[in-house]
Each structure stands twice: as structure tokens, then as C-alpha cells.
């Protein structure tokens, strides 16, 4: 043991360092601590530390030192693997195992670390087949059969360590192995050893489940094996032939479904396995920790699919057995809190995994008892979830379980054509009713009631970050809405009558308050409780109605759900259309007071109920009762109306195979109903905007409704016929109250809506008049203002500034309204302003908030319009953006500001500028323009002869921005990301432009790349590496030597070489760095050889020298001479991975 020479000194040094590290912070200085850390770090890096480590393990009494020794062994074994004799590795492994066996009292973390070292040795060994893995299983099974709980626990720890070492990919980079190696190790392991572990585990569980009384020690062993079983069943089985890149993606998936390979059939497709887990669960279900594991095992079994099933029959009988076991388990017990999530996971996995055909092939009695059980369970979890909310519990287990079950319902009923007709109606009614009941106040419902029926009601502070219920519970609501459609016959009338009742009560309540107010001058001591209860009821009823009646798909045309359509059609013969329209058209009257109200279309009646709510709200605002109203209810109303309008308003008969007469009569194109409702909605919007300007969210939902009304041409055509629309436009253009009280984002969206409306169908006079009322006042006011002779003097006056700011906001809104068919006119309009805006940049250079807004206008215009612009127009935009940047740069270079907000302001400016440049650059890959078709006939000639690309502008822009980008500013993560994204973009898309850059700019660009590669986050570093290949390829293309770019790439060769070979890097970067290295090597072959030579010559150890030299030879063998050829590049990358696995760690040895 020559390495053990001086071991006592090493031990005492390490022990005193450990003492420092373990000392409380007040006892040691930072320097002492760092020094101690350094001692351990260099100890772990020391060469062949095996002798010393063994000595430490045998003699030291300090746990932390033992831990470090185990770590050192693990790291050194991997590092020096190729240099070690096979039998010395073997004996090291035996030593470690025996060591642990002989010391049952080791600290847990020390033991786990030693076992981890064993597992790493086994895994590394499976690469060159030098270690026989089988022997370890033999040893372990002997340990298990010993019957000694301590030894059995140890056996379990060994298996767990092996399992996690072979399963998890995030350990891979720690031992410098390639993903491919990891993948093949895992494949071999899962076919054989993993199954062996599973069989061993099952034997232990079997044994324990038979015993009557388990003492504490035994039950802890039991628990460990149960957890191990769970780990095996949650194994992410690698399918054969999965590519290297996919493995990483694959490994990242959470919630693994059990998809074992065929070879597992015998071990897993055995009813006794499933029965064992049901038995185990029954035995331990009162222990919440263990119950979680046993239920998780069952959930994994419930997710089993893939080649393990020989045919569908096998699947059916497996599922049947599973359901029987599950039903008998659930029916016999009162479910514990800790079981709820587990049980819902089992059900959810069953329903998602097994195909419909298997579900329908089940014996019908079994299937219906399953559905019954699911129904009862859902309702019961729902009630418990509501209780949890009342008690404000931190851990919402029932809510989680309820969510899972509702999600499963959605999966089930979405494909209900496979099942017997109507088989889900009754369950849907029950689940729907219980949901409504939980969300309504007493006496109809149980909201806010604790288990013993006491109402709790507290007013908590809710901040703006908290999501609205419609988002927070969107999944629940979508499921309940779907179930409501399945049972439309019951649910739609139920919602209608509940809502009508609440609205009537709300109306009465508000009236009483008003009378009270008029009767006495004393302030009304309003009991908010009654009102709030009504508001909360209405809130939930509207949300459920919205989700029931319509979907909100992103980017596609929403259709009326077929269930709703069928329901309306089915009853259309009993319906009196006129009464229906009367109910719809008289939101101010009580629905039940209209004669014949029972013969109305229920779908329309539900909408009318919401309109009645809206009407009560509007009337209350007119009666100055705003204080009493709920902004939340206001939001719900406009949210519902928007969702409804997207789907039902001007229903397009062509999209449906059958259409309901009442619906098409009331809302179809060219109907009075549709016109009436558009007018009503518009009035609502106008009313809301004037009374609710102080409620940002409500105002926002309101303008969004307005946008919905005008963004589709058909709807807009009706909207612009309304006088109210014109009034709104005029009012907004004149900036008179109350619209100017709205916050700026709302004003922007309002402007957008007004512009969109202007593209509706109107005769040319009307259209001209419209624009004269909407856009021209904006232009006129603006021009009048800035053309005043004394503008320079008055520009800082608050009224002037407000006018300017309002104009800028409006411009952003106009840009947002851009669509392909209006871009022509909007662009010309906005261009006039952009030029003037640059003048404003000068005038307001001392007003950072205005400067910021000006840049934002440019960002918006570029963002929304550049992709549609033809060459001439693009040129104009490029030019004006360039001027903006020049002015900005002139005004901000060398400027010093003394106030606290200075850095923040500049950060925001630069972020916007980067955004602007990226937007301009996007023209190069997203271009919808059709050779100036939009502008045909306009000034074709001026653009001829000039070829300025986006790249020119962007590079120039970068040149202006670069001097302003300090390293401090790069500390803002979003700014840094945006910056590097931009420059990588440039290198990738326009490598040919890089050599033509002005010297200074070129230098700073290269410096930025180097900085990004070496001292930024790995994400940025990767971006920079990606930028290198195109640059090197560019050099190779031009064949010119001694250009600055050529010289720069030579420098990068060294950087990348060092990065890959000498520094510890993470495996994710190997690909990006490898590609960059390869292209750089192709370009600078001589320099590469020099680098390799000098690295080799610095090695004194002959073995390492040879090892390295061989590795370098193999690395380039497949690609000699290196050429820029895809095939060779791929081959190089492959060898590089082996290279890194073989010698990557070697060079790090001190």
C-alpha cells in the first residue's frame, strides 16, 4: 500500500478540515471555510487515492471524512478506469460491500454514498463486461434470506442504489458517460437485472404480507421494499432503437406509464402480482406513508400497456381483474384522506391507458358498477374538496383527487359514441348537481359550510396576481361543462332557473338598498353578506353556463357543441319562437312574468338569464349603486357574453350538418335578433367603460368583448351600423371623459377595436366619414400640437405631455389592429407618425418614460407589420428605425443620471430596442408579402436599385446599441438572453455579412461571443457555440486567409478545444461544442494538430500519454482529412462522445 504512506497526516488534515466545515457559522471565518472546502476538493482530485481512502474508511471516526473518502473512491474509479487492473476494481467493490455489511451502525448518508460507489462501479463495469454483475445479485439474495431485518435493509439499499444509478440520466454526466452508453446499459439492465430485482422484491412483500404482527423494525423493512417495488414499477422502460437525442427527452418525462418489454410477460402479467398489491394495501392502508406507495404501485399496474399484452383478450381480462380488485377494495372501506389521491390516480390511469374497445368489452355489469362507483367517488371527493377550501387547508388532497377524477370523466365522455347510448347521462346529472350544490350558498347549496353545518365567511385580501376562478378552475369547469352537455336535458334548465331566481333576488335586494338610501340621509349600514352570497352564486352559475354552452378554442372557429345543438333541435317543435324572442329581447323584465315562458328555447333562455343579470347590473350603475355592485360579477358577465358571441352570434349554417330553428332565427345572419343583441352588447360595453374605468380587469374584459365584436368582418358589419358605435368612436377621439380615465393598456385595446371596426363593410362616403371621425382627429391634434411655434417651450407642460402620451398609446393600438387586408392603409398612416416620433425623441430626451413609449410604438409597428410589407415599404421602415436608433444613441451616450431609476429605465429601453431589432430580423424568415402586391401601383420605382436587407439594418442597429450594453446591463437575465439570441440569429442567418462589418463592431461582436461562451449561463454559452459553425463555414467558403474573421475563428478553435478537452462541461453542451469544434478543425487543421501536440507533450505519464494519443487518433480517424461534410461531421460527433467518456475525466486529474 504505497499510497498509504503519509496516510495519518492526510487523515488528520481532513479531520480538522471537517471540523471547520461542521462548525457553526459564527465559529469560523469564510476564509477558513473556503480553505477547508478546498482541502476536500483537492483530496477528491488526487491521483489513485484508493489506498488512502481504504485506510480512512478503516480508521477514521469522523463521518464526514468517511463520506468524502467514499466520494473520492467513486470519482477516482471512473476517472482512472482504464488504468486500473480489473481484479483490483473487483476487490475494491468487495471491500466496499463487506465494509458496509460489517458496520451496521454507519451513518445513513455515509452508507448510501458507499453503496452509490458500488453501483457506479457496477455500471461502469457493464461497459466493458469486465465486472460480473450477477455475483452481486447472488450476494443480495443471500442477504435477504438471512431474515435479519438490518441485513435486509442493507440489501434493499444496495438494490435501490443500483436502480437509481441505472435509471436516472442526470447522473450520467457526473461520471462522464455518453447518453448512448447510458441507454445501452439501461436496456441490458431492464431486460434482466431489473426483473431479478422485481422478483426478489415480490418475494419479500409476499413474505411480509403473510405475517400477522409486524413489529416496528420489520414494518420499516416492509416499507423499504414496498418503495423499491414502486421504483421498479415506475421504471421508464426504454424502447429498443431510441435515438440518442430522444433518450434525454424521454428521460425527462414525469408520470411514467408502465410499458414493459415483452420479456416481462411472465413476471408481470400474472393476476397474483396485482392481488398481492391489493392485499398489501389492505394490510397497511392506515399507515399513510406506506399507503401512498402501495396505491402508487397499483396505479402503475393500472397504466400497464404495450407489447406485454399478447392480444386484446389478455388486456380485457387484465382490466376486468383490476376493476374487480379495485371495486372490492373501495366498497368495503371508508376512504382515508391519504388514500384519495392514490385511488384517483389508479382510476385516471385505467381510463387513459386502456382503449375504448377494451372498456366496452368488459362484462356490462362490471362496467356499470365501475361507473357507479366512479360517480359516487367523484361526488364525495368534490364535497370533501369544498370542505378543504372552507378550512383553508394547505394540503388540498381531495381537490387534487377531484381534479383527477373530473379529468377522467372528460376522457370517458369525449368518446361516448363507443359506449351504450345514454349510459353516462345519469352519472353526469349526479356529478353536475353535486358540483352546483357545492358552489351555491345555503339553503340550496353547501358553500362555505363546515362539516357540522356552520357557515364561515371571511374577507381575504386578494391581489392582482391571483388568477380568476375561470382560469384557476378551468379544467374542472371544462369537465363539468362537458358533463352538463351530456345531460343537457337536465342541466340547462337547472342553470336557467337557478340564475333567474338569483337575479330576481339581487334585483330586489338592490332596490331595497336604494329605497333605504333615498329615505334616510344616514349612510346605509349595508349588510354585504346577503349581496356577496348572491354575487358568489351568480359568479359560479355564469362560469358553469359559459363552459357548458361554448368552448374557447385558440385559433380555430368555435362551434356550437353538438350536444347543445341536438338538445335545442329536439325541443324545437314545442317551442314558441315569438315568446322566445320576447324573453330574449326584454332583459329588463322578469322572465317568469312573460306569458308562455314555459314554451321557450332553453338554450336561448339561459343566455337571456345572463342578459337579465347584465341588465340588473347596468340599471344599478345608472341608479348610482356602483358601490354595492360586484366587479367580479361584472367580469363574469362580459366574459360570458364574449365567449357566447364568438360561438353563437351570426351562427354560420354552413358549418353544421343540422341547425336548430330557434337558434338560427334568433342569432343567424340578417336577423333582427342578431342586430338587437349586437346593439345591446355595444351598449353594455359603453356603459361598462364609463362606469368601471377604475376596475382594470373588468375594463379589460369589456374591451376584449368589443374586439370580439369587430374582429370578424360579419359581426363588424352590424356593429358599424349602430349609432352607439359612432358615438363611442367620437367620444374616444375627442379624449373627453370618461374614456380618458381608462388605464393605458385598455385605451390601446379600445383604439385597436375602433380601427378594426373601420374595415367593416360601409359605403365609401360612410367609410371616409368614419376615418374622419376616428383616425384623423388623432393626426390633426398631433400635428397642430407639434407644429406650434412654441412647441419647444410648452412641450414639458403636463397637458401637452399627456396629449403626446395619449397619441403614442393610440399608435400602439393602431399597430395592434393590423391584419393582412388593412396593412396597406395602416402602414401609410403610421409612417407619417413614426417620422414625427423621432423628433419627439429629441424633445423628450429628458423624459425617459416618454422615450420608452416612443420606442414601443416602433416595436409594435415592426412586430405587427413587417411580415406583410413589400420591399419599398420595408425599406422605409428600416430607415426610420435606423434613425430612431441613431437619435437614441446620440442622446444616451455619455449621459449620466443621478436618480435611482436610471438603470431600470435604460434596461427597459435596451430591451425594447433588442425586441425591435429581432422583429425587423424576423422579416428574413417570416415574409407574407407578395412583391408589394398590397401596394401595387404605389411608388414602385423609388425602391429600385437599392438592396438593403434586414441584416444591414439590424447590424447597424447592433452597432448603435453595443456601446450602450455594459456588462452590468447584461446582468439583467432577460436583456442578456435577448441580446445573445439576436447576435446568434445574425451569425446564423447572415454569416456573409459578418466579415463586412466595421472593425470596431466586428471586434465587439467577437468579444460578445467569447464572453457569452466563457462566462455566461450554459444556455447562452450554447447559443454562442451555435453561432460559431456558420462563421467557420463562411470562412471556408471565401477561402481567404488572414481576414479578421479567419483569425478570430482560430482563436475560437482554441477556446472550444479547451472547453471540450480540459474543462468539465455538462453533456448537454457536447453536441453544440462538438459541431463548432468540427467546423473549426476543418478550417484550421494545422492549428488543431498543434493544439493536440502541445497537449500531449505536456503529459509526463507515459500511460496517460499513450491513452490520450490513441484517443485523439480515434477521434479524427473517421474524418481524415476533415471536410465540411454532414456525414463526416456526424461521425466525428459520435467519436467525440466516446472520446469524452474515455479521456474526458483523465485530463482533469491534478
Amino acid at each position: 500500500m504505497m499510497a498509504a504512506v503519509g496516510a495519518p497526516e492526510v487523515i488528520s488534515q481532513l479531520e480538522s478540515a471537517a471540523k471547520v466545515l461542521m462548525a457553526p457559522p459564527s465559529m469560523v471565518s469564510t476564509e477558513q471555510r473556503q480553505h477547508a472546502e478546498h482541502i476536500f476538493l483537492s483530496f477528491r482530485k488526487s491521483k489513485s487515492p484508493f489506498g488512502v481512502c481504504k485506510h480512512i474508511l478503516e480508521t477514521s471516526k469522523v463521518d464526514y471524512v468517511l463520506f468524502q473518502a467514499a466520494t473520492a473512491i467513486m470519482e477516482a474509479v471512473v476517472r482512472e478506469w482504464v488504468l486500473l487492473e480489473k481484479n483490483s476494481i473487483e476487490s475494491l467493490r468487495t471491500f466496499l460491500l463487506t465494509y458496509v455489511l460489517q458496520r451496521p451502525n454507519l451513518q445513513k448518508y455515509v452508507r448510501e454514498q458507499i453503496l452509490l460507489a458500488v453501483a457506479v462501479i457496477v455500471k461502469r463495469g457493464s461497459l466493458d463486461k469486465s465486472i460480473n454483475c450477477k455475483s452481486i445479485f447472488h450476494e443480495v439474495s443471500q442477504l435477504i434470506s438471512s431474515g435479519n431485518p438490518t441485513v435486509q435493509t442493507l440489501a434493499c439499499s444496495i438494490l435501490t442504489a443500483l436502480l437509481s444509478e441505472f435509471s436516472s440520466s442526470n447522473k450520467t454526466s457526473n461520471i462522464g458517460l455518453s447518453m448512448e452508453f447510458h441507454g445501452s446499459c439501461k436496456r441490458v439492465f431492464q431486460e434482466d437485472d431489473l426483473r431479478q430485482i422485481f422478483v426478489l422484491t415480490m418475494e419479500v412483500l409476499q413474505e411480509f404480507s403473510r405475517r400477522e404482527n409486524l413489529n416496528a423494525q420489520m414494518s420499516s423493512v416492509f416499507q423499504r421494499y414496498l418503495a423499491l417495488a414502486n421504483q421498479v414499477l415506475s421504471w421508464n422502460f426504454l424502447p429498443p432503437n431510441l435515438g440518442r437525442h430522444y433518450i434525454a427527452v424521454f428521460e425527462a418525462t414525469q408520470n411514467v406509464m408502465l410499458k414493459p418489454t415483452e420479456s416481462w410477460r411472465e413476471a408481470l402479467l400474472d393476476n397474483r402480482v396485482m392481488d398481492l398489491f391489493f392485499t398489501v394495501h389492505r394490510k397497511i392502508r392506515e399507515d399513510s406513508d406506506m399507503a401512498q406507495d402501495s396505491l402508487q404501485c397499483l396505479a402503475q399496474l393500472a397504466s400497464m400497456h404495450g407489447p406485454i399484452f399478447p392480444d386484446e383478450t389478455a388486456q380485457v381480462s387484465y382490466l376486468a381483474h383490476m376493476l374487480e380488485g379495485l371495486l372490492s377494495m373501495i366498497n368495503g372501506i371508508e376512504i382515508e384522506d391519504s388514500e384519495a389521491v392514490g385511488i384517483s390516480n389508479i382510476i385516471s390511469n385505467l381510463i387513459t391507458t386502456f382503449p375504448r374497445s377494451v372498456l366496452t368489452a368488459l362484462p356490462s355489469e362490471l362496467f356499470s358498477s365501475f361507473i357507479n362507483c366512479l360517480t359516487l367517488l367523484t361526488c364525495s371527493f368534490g364535497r370533501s374538496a369544498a370542505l378543504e377550501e372552507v378550512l383553508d387547508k394547505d394540503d388540498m388532497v381531495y381537490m387534487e383527487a377531484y381534479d383527477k377524477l373530473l379529468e377522467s370523466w372528460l376522457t370517458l365522455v369525449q368518446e361516448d359514441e363507443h359506449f351504450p347510448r345514454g349510459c353516462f347521462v345519469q352519472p353526469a346529472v349526479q356529478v353536475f348537481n353535486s358540483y352546483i350544490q357545492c358552489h351555491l350558498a345555503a339553503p340550496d347549496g353547501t358553500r362555505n359550510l363546515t362539516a357540522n353545518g356552520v357557515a364561515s365567511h371571511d374577507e381575504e385580501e386578494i391581489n392582482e396576481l391571483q388568477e380568476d376562478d375561470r382560469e384557476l378552475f378551468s379544467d374542472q369547469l371544462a369537465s363539468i361543462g362537458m358533463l352538463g352537455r351530456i345531460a343537457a336535458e337536465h342541466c340547462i334548465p337547472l342553470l336557467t332557473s337557478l340564475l333567474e331566481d338569483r337575479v330576481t333576488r339581487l334585483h330586489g335586494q338592490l332596490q331595497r338598498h336604494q329605497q333605504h338610501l333615498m329615505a334616510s340621509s344616514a349612510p346605509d349600514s349595508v349588510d354585504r353578506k346577503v349581496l356577496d352570497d348572491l354575487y358568489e352564486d351568480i359568479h359560479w352559475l355564469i362560469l358553469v353556463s359559459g363552459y357548458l354552452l361554448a368552448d374557447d378554442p385558440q385559433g380555430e372557429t368555435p362551434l356550437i357543441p353538438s350536444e347543445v345543438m341536438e338538445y335545442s333541435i329536439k325541443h324545437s317543435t314545442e317551442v314558441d319562437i315569438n315568446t322566445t324572442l320576447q324573453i330574449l329581447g326584454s332583459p329588463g323584465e322578469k322572465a317568469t312574468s312573460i306569458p308562455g315562458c314555459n314554451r321557450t328555447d332553453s338554450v336561448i333562455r339561459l343566455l337571456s338569464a345572463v342578459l337579465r343579470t347584465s341588465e340588473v347590473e347596468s340599471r344599478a350603475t345608472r341608479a348610482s349603486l356602483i358601490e354595492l355592485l360586484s366587479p367580479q360579477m361584472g367580469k363574469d358577465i362580459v366574459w360570458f357574453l364574449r365567449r357566447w358571441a364568438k360561438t353563437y352570434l351570426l351562427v354560420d349554417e354552413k358549418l353544421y350538418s343540422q341547425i336548430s330553428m330557434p337558434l338560427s332565427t334568433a342569432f343567424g345572419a340578417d336577423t333582427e335578433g342578431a342586430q338587437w343583441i349586437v346593439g345591446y352588447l355595444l351598449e353594455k360595453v359603453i356603459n361598462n367603460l364609463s362606469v368601471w374605468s377604475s376596475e382594470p380587469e373588468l375594463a379589460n374584459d369589456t374591451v376584449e368583448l368589443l374586439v370580439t365584436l369587430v374582429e370578424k368582418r360579419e359581426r363588424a358589419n352590424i356593429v358599424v351600423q349602430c349609432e352607439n358605435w359612432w358615438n363611442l368612436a367620437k367620444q374616444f377621439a375627442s379624449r373627453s371623459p370618461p374614456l380618458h380615465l381608462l388605464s393605458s393598456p385598455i385605451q390601446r385595446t379600445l383604439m385597436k377595436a375602433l380601427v378594426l371596426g373601420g374595415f367593416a363593410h360601409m359605403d365609401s362616403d360612410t367609410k371616409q366619414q368614419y376615418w374622419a371621425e376616428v383616425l384623423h382627429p388623432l393626426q390633426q391634434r398631433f400635428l397642430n400640437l407639434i407644429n406650434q411655434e412654441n412647441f419647444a417651450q410648452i412641450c414639458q407642460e403636463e397637458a401637452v405631455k399627456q396629449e403626446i402620451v395619449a397619441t403614442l398609446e393610440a399608435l400602439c393600438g393602431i399597430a395592434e389592429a393590423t391584419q393582412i387586408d388593412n396593412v396597406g392603409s395602416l402602414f401609410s398612416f403610421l409612417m407619417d407618425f413614426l417620422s414625427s416620433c423621432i423628433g419627439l425623441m429629441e424633445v423628450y430626451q429628458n423624459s425617459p418614460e416618454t422615450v420608452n413609449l416612443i420606442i414601443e410604438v416602433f416595436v409594435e409597428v415592426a412586430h405587427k407589420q413587417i411580415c406583410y410589407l413589400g420591399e419599398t415599404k420595408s425599406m422605409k421602415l428600416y430607415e426610420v428605425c435606423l434613425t430612431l436608433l441613431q437619435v437614441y444613441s446620440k442622446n444616451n451616450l455619455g449621459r449620466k443620471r443621478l436618480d435611482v431609476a436610471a438603470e431600470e429605465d435604460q434596461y427597459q429601453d435596451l430591451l425594447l430596442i433588442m425586441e425591435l431589432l429581432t422583429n425587423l430580423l424576423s422579416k428574413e424568415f417570416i415574409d407574407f408579402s407578395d412583391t408589394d402586391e398590397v401596394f401595387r401601383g404605389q411608388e414602385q420605382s423609388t425602391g429600385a436599385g437599392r438592396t438593403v436587407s434586414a441584416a444591414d439594418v439590424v447590424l447597424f442597429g447592433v452597432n448603435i446599441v453595443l456601446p450602450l450594453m455594459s456588462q452590468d446591463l447584461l446582468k439583467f437575465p432577460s436583456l442578456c438572453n435577448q441580446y445573445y439570441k439576436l447576435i446568434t440569429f445574425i451569425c446564423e442567418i447572415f454569416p456573409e455579412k459578418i466579415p463586412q462589418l466595421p472593425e470596431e463592431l466586428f471586434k465587439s461582436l467577437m468579444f460578445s461571443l467569447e464572453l457569452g461562451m466563457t462566462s455566461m449561463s450554459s444556455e447562452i454559452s450554447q447559443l454562442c457555440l451555435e453561432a460559431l459553425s456558420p462563421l467557420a463555414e463562411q470562412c471556408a467558403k471565401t477561402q481567404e486567409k488572414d481576414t479578421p474573421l479567419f483569425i478570430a475563428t482560430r482563436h475560437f478553435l482554441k477556446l472550444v478545444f479547451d472547453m471540450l478537452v480540459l474543462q468539465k462541461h455538462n453533456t448537454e453542451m457536447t453536441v453544440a461544442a462538438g459541431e463548432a469544434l468540427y467546423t473549426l478543425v476543418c478550417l484550421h487543421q494545422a492549428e488543431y494538430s498543434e493544439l493536440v501536440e502541445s497537449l500531449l507533450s505536456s503529459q509526463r505519464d507515459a500511460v496517460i500519454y499513450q491513452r490520450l494519443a490513441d484517443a485523439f487518433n480515434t477521434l479524427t480517424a473517421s474524418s481524415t482529412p476533415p471536410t465540411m461534410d454532414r456525414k463526416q461531421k456526424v461521425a466525428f460527433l459520435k467519436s467525440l462522445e466516446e472520446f469524452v467518456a474515455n479521456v474526458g475525466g483523465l485530463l482533469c486529474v491534478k
Partner: protein
Amino acid sequence: MADPDLDFTSGDAGASETYPQQCSALRKNGFVVLKGRPCKIVEMSTSKTGKHGHAKVHLVGIDIFTNKKYEDICPSTHNMDVPNIKRNDYQLVDINEGFLSLMLDNGDVREDLRVPDGDLGKEIETKHGAGEDMMVGTFFFFFFFFFFFFPWFKLNLVYEHCSVAFLTEGSNITGPLKYFVQN
């Protein structure tokens, strides 16, 4: 005017010092009077009491003179005072015993402002000194942000918001920028 510090009514050229604005129309980076002090709004958020409550606005502002932080919470329907803030650019003419001589566009000179403390002050002095040495060919502006808000600033000689930009004659105004100049 017993207490000049609290006087809001008199001030520069008869313009009103503050004007009311509904809370919801305020914006981040804008200005507001918090606890009697003119502040730049650095944070603005809303909240409500109970799900059906009305919005309240939470404002965090930084005093533009003292950099002190002020907070306020009020109903969003509330009208807040917004200070009328005026910024002037002066040309630096001279520095006398720690006081700046500044010239307005109309030729008026004010000499009641002290050279700022810290690096900025030193920089102004150095540049100014260098400017004197190089009378020919070099010429620089000293842009000075300044707030006519409180009448007492003259007593305290407070200036918090400074900005310096150095321009070399004839440079920078090239290319497309001409467009701007012509306009």
C-alpha cells in the same frame, strides 16, 4: 405662507402645481404625490378585499428630490394628485465657488445651484475645466434636469435629477438624421 415647505399654491409662473387624476389612469414610471411628496411611481399593483370587493391601488413611489420611498394604498376610484413637473435644460456657463452658473434659452442666468456631490459633480468640474482649456473646436452642453415644484428648493438648493451629455460639434448629425434636423 407660514410654512413654505408645505405650500402648494404658489410657484412657477402661476401654473398649478398639481392636478387630480383617477388612480386607475396613473401609470408606472409616471408621477404622483404620495404623503405630500412628489414621487416617481416605481411599482403599481391592485388588490381587493374579498372576491366581490372593489379594486384598490397600491402605489410605491420614490421621492424625486430625496430618493426616499413612499407607499400608499387607496380605492382605484380615488383621485390622486399628480405633480406638474417641469424639466429645463441649461447651458453651463461657469462654476463659481461650488455653485453652477446656468443659462436658460432666454439668456437668463441662475447661480443658485450647488455643484452636485459625488462623482457626477467631480465630472462636471473636470469637463468644465477641460472645456476652458480647449476653447477652440470643443463645446459642450450641460443638460440639467430640474424640478420647479416646491418653492423651497431655492432655500435648500436641492437638485437630484441630473443629466450630462457631451457632444462634440459637428459629429453625429449625419445620414438619415438630417431628415430629423430638416423637420
